């Protein structure tokens, strides 16, 4: 594996009652991390990846994730 990839994504509840997306990332060394996206970031990630469901995010490069995170 040459770069970290998205290993999966799950919908969870945010503290403001909106749905959020927890995206799991598998790094080059095999370690797993997670990033929680709010609705806007998650929608953008799905659009950027051409994904129609959370399952279709699996395998996408983490650069796509970095691109939608708040600066």
């Amino acid at each position, binding site marked *: 594996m040459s770069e970290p990839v998205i290993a999966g*994504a*799950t*919908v*969870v*509840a*945010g*503290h*403001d*009652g*909106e*749905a*959020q*997306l*927890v995206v*799991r990332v598998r790094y080059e060394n095999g370690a797993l*991390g*997670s*990033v*929680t*996206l*709010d*609705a*806007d970031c*998650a*929608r953008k990630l*799905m659009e950027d990846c051409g994904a*129609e*469901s*959370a*399952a*279709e995010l699996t395998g996408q490069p983490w650069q796509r994730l970095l691109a939608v995170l*708040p600066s």
Partner: protein
Amino acid sequence: MLDLAIRNGRIVDGTGLPAFEGDLGLRAGRIETVGGRLPQGAAARELDARGQVVAPGFIDPHTHFDAQLLWDGQARPALEHGVTTVVHGNCSLSLAPLRAEHRAKLVSMFQQIEEMPDAAFHGAFEWTWEGFADYVAALRGRLALNVAPLAGHSVIRLWAMGADAQKRAATSDEIRAMQDLLRECLEAGAVGLSTSYVDVDENLFPVPSRFAHHEEIAALASVLGEFGRMLQVVPEFYDTDITLARVDQLAELSLAHRIPTTFSPLFDYAAAPANVSRVLARVAEQTARGAQVWPQVQTRPIDISFSLDQASLIFVQTPIWYLVMRLPREQKLRSLRDPGTRTSLLQAAEPNGDPARFAKLRIRDSRDPSLVGRRLGELAAERGTTPAALMIDLSLEEDLGIHFLSASMGHEDPARVGAILANDLVHVGASDGGAHIQSFATYGDTGYLFSEFVRKGGHLSLERAVKKITGDTARIWNLPERGELRPGQAGDVVVFDPDTIGRGEELPVRDMPGGGMRYVRSASGVDAVIVGGEVVYTRSGGYTDARPGVIATS
């Protein structure tokens, strides 16, 4: 003569020590006697607490009652749940210090971040202040419960830097001006400074506090150190690793300036099961070094509310639903009415005719009040349809205005959350009282602590649970006159039935200024609430007209 005697109670004094039977005597707003039996006629007023727990008033360290307190000094319904002191001004936002020309900006940020309606700020009260001392003066005389207000970093930045507060780092002169301003706030009664690394304004642009470099935070922390006051932070809680870095940063500030720090929220959810354990491990390391870093954890599970008007992420695991929900509104309405699309949606939602997935969803609000709170499964069975079909039909009938609720979608495993709440490093809080009012009820977390984690789960003893939300909170926030029942302490007391204390059903009410809607929960099992020695609520008589609340830091 005493002013008030509370007789025959089971006293749980907020220290964590075992409960004991006895009477409590109050005079001149303070506790005078604890335990033993008071002679007949010892007090001008008496309450019989037989079979009830007598405890210190609960302290809620994370609220946004800033505006509500100006038209509702009882902070309803928080008070009836036994909350006698609230900390407001969290998350970098407070109503002071604030120049008149920045009021509109602040209101917009409150609306965006805390989902507070416009009417809460316009017409419901008169803006009579700019400085913190005048704001505190505006609160005095209105309050039925005590307040410990934080000064918001974002508004301090706005005051010192104007529009540049959302453009750049501060200069040395501007940092000195912010230090002077924070010092004035603390002298006027502020309990600390709140800041945020996360929130965005009405234009989805970072709030002013997010433009601060560490030098600015450290300079402000040094002022907090002069007073021994709190730094409250919203860290990047969506990322465990960044949160760990913030824990380290807070620890360094705590050690350098001898201040307490707290951050919120910290959640447990199945999708990131190591989040809390990793954060608490780092907090333990820093606590062992002598730092004061307190993670705030809420008691209640998190629900998701949604309507078909928005492309909620709740649909991202069902592609056809997410696809339709992302359509422009008119096209979406046509699709929902289209028989072919409807069939596809129902097949995806109820594979092989199994309605289970949507059956548990509840109706959150509707034009028809009789539907509110009903489960789609029950209602669909009554109407001879399926839950998913009913969701579509009701949404079309109400022009997509009806909202649904998916309960317990996060922070939802009582066994895990109970163990977290029982951890000595965890500060029970993060209720967000007074915020997100049109999404869910932020009241009753204290009752839920007892019903779910004392009675049902047994994660905490009664005495420990009381200590968590009284004595511990007062110690963490440096409120030495509150949180325990002992002579000389402020006369803040709650009398409750340990077998029934809890929270009521979440209900929509229209009691906001201008007739606006919010969700509330009533209390159950709380018999009486006393603030500063005066009875402010009883189960039998409701709220009283007393206004004994004070600025808790004064």
